């Protein structure tokens, strides 16, 4: 059965809405995936260039690190 009998006279609108939903969902998934890959790559580059995060270092004897939103809040004595 062609899609028109299956979906009735307004088949084009039904197909169009499913197409839009699929497009937007695929767009979101792609955006999240590509963004993840890019961030990991940039992090690796920075790591390779020797830029360390303070928490990844042995705790320096100097003053406590300034408040940094990204670094973990309280580095437990792991």
């Amino acid at each position: 059965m062609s899609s028109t009998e299956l979906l009735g006279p307004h088949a084009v609108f039904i197909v169009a809405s499913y197409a839009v939903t699929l497009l937007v969902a695929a767009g979101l998934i792609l955006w999240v995936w590509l963004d993840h890959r890019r961030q990991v790559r940039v992090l690796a580059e920075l790591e390779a260039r020797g830029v360390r995060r303070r928490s990844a270092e042995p705790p320096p004897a100097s003053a406590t690190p300034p408040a940094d939103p990204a670094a973990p809040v309280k580095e437990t004595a792991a």
Partner: protein
Amino acid sequence: MAWIDLANPTRFLRLVDRALPWLTALTVFAFAYALNGAFGAPDDYQQGATVKIMFIHVPAAWLGMFCWGMMTISALGTLVFRHPLADVAAKAAVPLGAAFTFVCLVTGALWGRPMWGTYWVWDARLTSVLVMFVMYLGLIALWRTVEDPTRAGRAAAILTLVGALNLPIIKFSVDWWNTLHQPASVVRVDGPAIHPSILIPLLAMTLAFTLLFVALHLAAMRNEILRRRVRTLRLLQAQGARGA
């Protein structure tokens, strides 16, 4: 896993890395089941086959509002409890909410064309959802304008709280004003007014959409945490404190 433990981004990242594959598999399975149910459902006696648009229009609308509700909680988390991941969660959710509200508006218009004869009418429900969509874009613009994530998070949290006033308006718009839009038929005082043969697939689709949203949201939050770490590292590098 106390709620506060989630405050530690590293532990949160480990959790996401562990949970995401399972969540993705669950989402795919839920969609398979729901879509099969949706296309098996009978036609509506009035609307004919166009009722199939409901299976994406309603979940998208639900997600648009659910996401703003979730962002409101994160806004409280940022402003009141100073939870470090709250503004990460809010920033990660905004594009998803905007996308699903856009899908809701478009599928609604595509459903309106055959059923009402026009893509758009300035009806209370449609207008309030459009206002929410414009506010979503406003939030995205806000996040893209302020450089410092902490300051942006605070401003966005305040805007989200103000915007939350729009949620009850959307929900009850169909009851307060005589609208062309269908009144509530699922979340009702005396129970859903839809026949189970269409209600079950609708609930399944909504669950599938919600799972998709949660999976995307966790992944987006992971990206956001990594992005902040990159920014911190670059600031450190600029200071030359640790630079090679």
